[in-house]
């Protein structure tokens, strides 16, 4: 497959995904929109397999079959009433996948050549961080909806300080990844960066999600969903996959917009939701 054809196919598939999303926002065409998105995603897999010349690697299909079996079993078995926590769980799993791709890229496994090491390192650690935040945040959301965790907003005494501290550490990890190596004579300690990235992101995701009340969880899940799209896009930047970047960007942006629409229709402000103010009782736990 020539690069030109590949770029053309990527553009066509991105437009198909856009069309699918816009069709899904109308009741009449929603089912067809969903199918269109699904078909274009699977076409994307085929294109990636052929373009990278890896269609003959049989392990890929083995892993995919395992995923398909588990995924379809879950989709068929789940009760309608348990749907929100199911979506949260699936979303978290998607975040995990992005984080793993970021880790692999950071370790230098599984890509042909690195033309821009600085850009690749920075985007890879960002993908890990955003992916892990999505994973842990979604798991907490699913746990709350499934009544495994307390439904009330849990607010620690220094909640904001913990979140800010996490953000500073995460930024430092990214900066370390950027300035290590040739610059400043620092050596890039990849395992240290990864350790900080994963651990602190997990804490951030937990602190972020535990503060939201059970009734506001759907909006949080929508926000985390947008985040997992962004994680995918950043992972795409790390491995220079344009289809991943464009679809991730589309999902990230339209997910954020959907979050705003949901907030408006529930007559709540996003800040109130995220800081754990419920309309029933503002009592901190």
């Amino acid at each position, binding site marked *: 497959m020539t690069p030109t054809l590949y770029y053309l196919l990527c553009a066509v598939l991105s437009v198909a995904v856009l069309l699918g999303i816009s069709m899904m926002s109308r009741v009449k065409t*929603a089912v067809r929109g*969903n199918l269109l998105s699904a078909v274009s995603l699977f076409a994307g897999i085929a294109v990636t397999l052929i373009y990278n010349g890896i269609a003959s690697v049989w392990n890929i299909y083995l892993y995919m079959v*395992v995923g398909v079996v*588990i995924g379809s079993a879950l*989709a068929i078995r789940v009760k309608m009433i348990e749907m929100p926590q199911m979506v949260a769980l699936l979303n978290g799993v998607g975040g995990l996948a992005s984080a793993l791709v970021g880790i692999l890229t950071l*370790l230098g496994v599984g890509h042909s050549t690195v033309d821009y090491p600085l*850009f690749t390192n920075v985007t890879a650690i960002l993908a890990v961080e955003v992916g892990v935040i999505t994973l842990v945040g979604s798991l907490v959301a699913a746990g709350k909806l499934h009544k495994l965790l307390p439904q009330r907003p849990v607010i620690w005494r220094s909640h904001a300080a913990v979140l800010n501290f996490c953000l500073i550490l995460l930024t430092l990890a990214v900066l370390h990844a950027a300035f290590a190596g040739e610059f400043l004579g620092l050596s890039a300690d990849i395992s240290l960066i990864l350790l900080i990235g994963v651990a602190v992101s997990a804490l951030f995701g937990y602190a972020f999600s535990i503060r939201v009340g059970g009734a506001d969880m759907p909006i949080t899940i929508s926000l985390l969903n947008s985040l997992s799209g962004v994680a995918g896009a950043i992972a795409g930047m790390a491995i220079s996959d344009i289809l991943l970047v464009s679809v991730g960007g589309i999902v990230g*942006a339209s997910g954020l917009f959907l979050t705003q*629409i949901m907030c408006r229709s529930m007559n709540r402000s996003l800040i109130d939701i995220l800081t754990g103010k419920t309309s029933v009782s503002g009592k901190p736990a």
Partner: protein
Amino acid sequence: MNPVLLILIFAVATGVGYMIIRNVPSLLHTPLMSGMNALSGITLLGAVAAVGLSVAAIRQQDLLLGQILGGLAIIAATLNVVGGFGVTHRMLKMFDKKKREGKES
């Protein structure tokens, strides 16, 4: 690929994605969210590429790591995609039935 180009693609996709959604009826909020969740499993492409290219790795250690972590990534992403689209389809089918029953009665 040039980083500037990649960031440009991201910016354009973000802009278009933000504009594509207009007034969504509240009935469709959850299915749309679930559908987009399935789409965010697009990271599967990255996982597939990582596993496929790690086969050509020179060091034995890289191959093993690529297979374990990459395999886990493929399983997770496929789970997200298949489960997500399946769940969305079931939700949308439910609306269909409701509407038809409503018309018949």
